């Protein structure tokens, strides 16, 4: 590569020599296509083996399950494209809900105030994660592992201190509940199926993320920061700001799901959310995001979350022995990643020598 830049005259010759990919190969080279093929394979598979999977109602249950993972995964995917990890994403969801519930319940304040306070708090946590990562240069894996443990302990400790128990009091009689419930946790019926509002929010966030990544300057910055931070900085990309922003995006969508969980279930167990951080990362990786950064897209991450939701519930719809649940899940996810990889190989294999 450095050679070509040093010898500009060679450029025309290179152009004529270049392997031009056909439209099918260009399509296959997109990160989400492998995941899409895997999703279709798994979908058809469960359609075949699980009669209960075939109803439209089941599809929307799957979509709901996928959305609760998928919403945070949108941000985690963007963060991973930007070259960083966030292991605190699972507990931030619970932290956000706890802050809102306890603040309002103890002081008897309208829940909207608590929701906004919790938003500010979550964004501050995201900022802290990002700031520590760009300031210290310590891998984000370690920084956010630290925040993960701190939040996990603080969730339990503070909740116990404030409420005397490890779950929050029921908030469904408080001012502001019904409007917040409508925004974050309502559902409506279309024909015979119940659509959870989170599914719509998920779609919106995916579209938004796709637009940012593919169509805006910030999107280019994200790819550049994740691909090679030093060269990105050299050409004037504000890498630090981009990364801090990405961590705050994760915190924002974590807050969003935290609000959903709180207003759907009215109380929160302080120990919840642990382990979900990996589901977000899995969704992103199954969806074609590279663990090393710089590659992936929003649609792929969404399909990854859908594959996870479909597999985890498909096993239930199929009525398989529950003791084997995790084993089935593991095999399915491995298959998904392998199909993904295979399709990508097909697409990038050079046909001309």
């Amino acid at each position, binding site marked *: 590569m450095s050679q070509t830049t040093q010898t500009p005259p060679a450029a025309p010759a290179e152009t004529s020599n270049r392997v031009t990919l056909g439209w099918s190969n260009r399509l296959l080279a997109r990160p989400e296509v492998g995941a899409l093929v895997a999703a279709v394979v798994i979908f058809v598979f469960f359609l075949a083996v699980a009669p209960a999977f075939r109803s439209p109602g089941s599809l929307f*249950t799957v979509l709901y399950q996928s959305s609760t993972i998928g919403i945070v995964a949108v941000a985690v995917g963007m963060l991973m494209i930007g070259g960083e990890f966030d292991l605190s994403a699972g507990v931030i969801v619970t932290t956000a809900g706890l802050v809102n519930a306890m603040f309002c319940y103890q002081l008897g304040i309208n829940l909207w105030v608590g929701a906004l306070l919790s938003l500010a708090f979550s964004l501050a946590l995201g900022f802290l994660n990002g700031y520590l990562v760009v300031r210290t240069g310590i891998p984000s894996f370690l920084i956010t592992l630290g925040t993960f443990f701190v939040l996990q302990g603080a969730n339990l400790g503070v909740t116990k201190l404030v409420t005397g128990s490890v*779950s929050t009091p029921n908030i469904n009689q408080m001012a502001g509940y019904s409007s917040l419930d409508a925004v974050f946790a309502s559902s409506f019926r279309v024909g015979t199926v*119940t659509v959870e509002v989170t599914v719509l929010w998920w779609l919106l966030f995916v579209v938004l993320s796709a637009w940012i990544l593919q169509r805006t300057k910030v999107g280019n910055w994200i790819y550049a920061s994740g691909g090679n931070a030093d060269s990105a900085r050299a050409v004037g990309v504000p890498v630090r700001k981009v990364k801090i922003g990405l961590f705050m995006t994760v915190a924002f969508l974590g807050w969003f799901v935290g609000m959903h969980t709180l207003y759907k279930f009215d109380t929160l167990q302080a120990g919840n959310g642990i382990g979900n951080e990996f589901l977000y990362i899995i969704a992103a990786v199954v969806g074609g995001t590279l663990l090393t950064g710089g590659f992936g897209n929003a649609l792929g991450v969404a399909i990854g979350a859908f594959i996870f939701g479909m597999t*985890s519930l498909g096993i239930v719809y199929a009525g398989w022995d529950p003791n084997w649940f995790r084993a089935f899940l593991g095999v399915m996810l491995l298959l998904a990643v392998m199909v993904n990889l295979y399709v990508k190989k097909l697409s990038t294999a050079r046909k001309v020598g």
Partner: protein
Amino acid sequence: MTLPRARKSAKVAGVATAVALVAAACSSGGAPSTSAGGTGGGGGAGDNSGYTFAMVTHETPGDTFWDKIKAGANQAAKNNGITLKYSNDPEPSKQATLIQNAVDSKVDGIATTLATPDALAGAVKSAASANIPVVAFNSGIDQYQKVGALMYFGSDETLAGTTAGKRITEAGAKKPLCVIQAAGSVALEARCAGVKSAAPATENIQVNGADDPSVVSALQAKLSQDKSIDYIVTLGAPIALDALKAIDQSGSSAKLITFDLNQDAAQAIKDGKIQFSIDQQPYVQGYLAVQSLYLYKKNGNDIGGGKPVLTGPSFVDAKNIDAILPFAKNNTR
């Protein structure tokens, strides 16, 4: 306040000493967190014994069930001027280390759960050889004597499951679904096995108890996969509330019963949404574990006559919920 609790326990335990103890628990007050300071005794039964006991459990942090165990244990410690050191780890080997830590720090007595008796046997034996009395509570009913614990306070999980199974079969259950919220737990498996022994058509499902949305969608999926499910048995109060959502959203007519109680579940029983709860009275387990160590150290008392002292199964349903609801709100039931 004394009467219903004493009557219930008498029915359950049938051990005179235990009744006396429970009655004593009531007379010295039910709300443990009101007065924080002071290790002095509560009421006339107080004693400034100065003992230090260690309580070691397999608690996974964040389950309201253990709040009640701790509330009971703290109340007993406060009544008798005991310093109580609480520690927990869900992993058997680490729990064994915690017991060993207590032995090394030469406490006066150890109360431990025996969810994984084989893994903990060594640590319990080393306590015995250091002349530190050990009592077991909550789990380990079949093995507590073998590993060398002096007494046992808890519920018989299989019996609890069987009783619940019988009761729903009598109520017309054809196809119960038993919901396990933590994979690989002996106690939870025993409950479901108990239910199955009385209602052979029972099917199990595993859910991730740490993620409410996924519990709801998994149960919704199961209810639409198998429409013949007419009863759901949950093994913890928070899961019961998730199950209510799932039943509601899938339009199923399945009925719900649950193990254990919390404030919201108690309210749901009052509202008729949960048929009944099989309560093992965690507050009593924590209380008696500490109280028994105290009595053993002080007077050499033995509780239970060489047999386990049962704190459950005790049924909470529409008939007695009015009396129990205030206790549930108090975190003592």
